[in-house]
């Protein structure tokens, strides 16, 4: 192994869990509509309070995976995500793996999303707050064809409401190289 990116500083992150972080605003009808229209999934459970689904869920709900994308630029983040204006190398993505977790200090640039494992428990209703806490489950290095790759396995738990009703759990693998 030419370079070992799994330094003590990286190893110290394994197992680290963030506090609960709240999404930038509660679930809104138009955000749900944007989501299902962009997904092209006009299921009445997402918008029709009179649908049979609404009886099961207590009203229209957001799509199952909605919570995963509910953590966007909060109003208190002044840095413009398009702000690397002029840097022709800037790819538009944040190098922050999760809000609430420190960056993984590896000098690799490219980030690939390797995949997800989801486990679903409930769906958020309109007006409900979405919360998430994340943990680094594992960080390992592998030798790829084009050099070393660091695999970052992140576990996210999503919950909603004052009672922290579980929404879903996700285990995802990010590949940096």
């Amino acid at each position, binding site marked *: 192994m030419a370079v070992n990116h799994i330094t003590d500083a990286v190893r110290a992150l394994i197992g680290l869990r963030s506090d609960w972080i709240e999404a930038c605003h509660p679930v809104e009808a138009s955000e749900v509509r944007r989501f299902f229209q962009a997904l*092209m999934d006009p*299921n009445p459970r997402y918008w029709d309070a009179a649908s049979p689904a609404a009886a099961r869920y207590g009203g229209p709900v957001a799509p199952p995976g909605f919570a995963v994308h509910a953590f966007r630029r909060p109003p208190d983040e002044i840095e413009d995500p398009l702000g690397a204006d002029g840097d022709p*190398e800037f790819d*538009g993505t944040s190098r922050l793996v999760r809000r609430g977790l420190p960056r993984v200090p590896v000098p690799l640039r490219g980030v690939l999303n390797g995949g997800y494992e989801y486990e679903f*428990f*409930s769906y958020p209703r309109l007006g409900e707050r979405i919360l998430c806490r994340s943990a680094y489950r594992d960080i390992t290095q592998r030798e790829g064809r084009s050099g070393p790759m660091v695999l970052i396995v992140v576990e996210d738990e999503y919950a909603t409401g004052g009672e922290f009703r579980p929404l879903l759990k996700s285990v995802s693998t990010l590949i940096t190289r």
Partner: protein
Amino acid sequence: MGAIFEDVEIGQEIPRLVKGPITTAHIVRWSAAMENWHRIHFDWHYATQHDGLPDVLVNGSWKQHVMIQLVTDWAGETGWAWKIAFRFRGMNLPGETLTAWGRVTGKEERGRFGVVDLEIGLRNEQGAEGTPGTARVVLPRRGGPPVPYPFDPAVLAG
């Protein structure tokens, strides 16, 4: 109406979900809805000249929700799409039509409910498999109660 455990056979295909042809407008709409500003999805110069891609790319985040829709649609309002896992393997470009598919690989009675395992995927017209994965769905038994909501895996114990 959602599927009933007793009606499910191993090897059976669940209803497919067809999306497309995907245009750049679809990709832009998704990127904007997610506030995902990764340039490979909408900046053609960046995608092709900086990253050396053949074109802008269909968002992986969009494909994952198509997979989730495939499984939740089949589970219906009486079953529960419990677990879904997949890997991102291939890239998809504007102009492609994508078909999400699933096939039953196993079934098991668990208490008053049934658990069904699926293999799932998302193919383009050339048959290239971009998002292979698996899913586990909880279904009601014939004449039995619907799967309780919110879902608690403990209901499968007894």
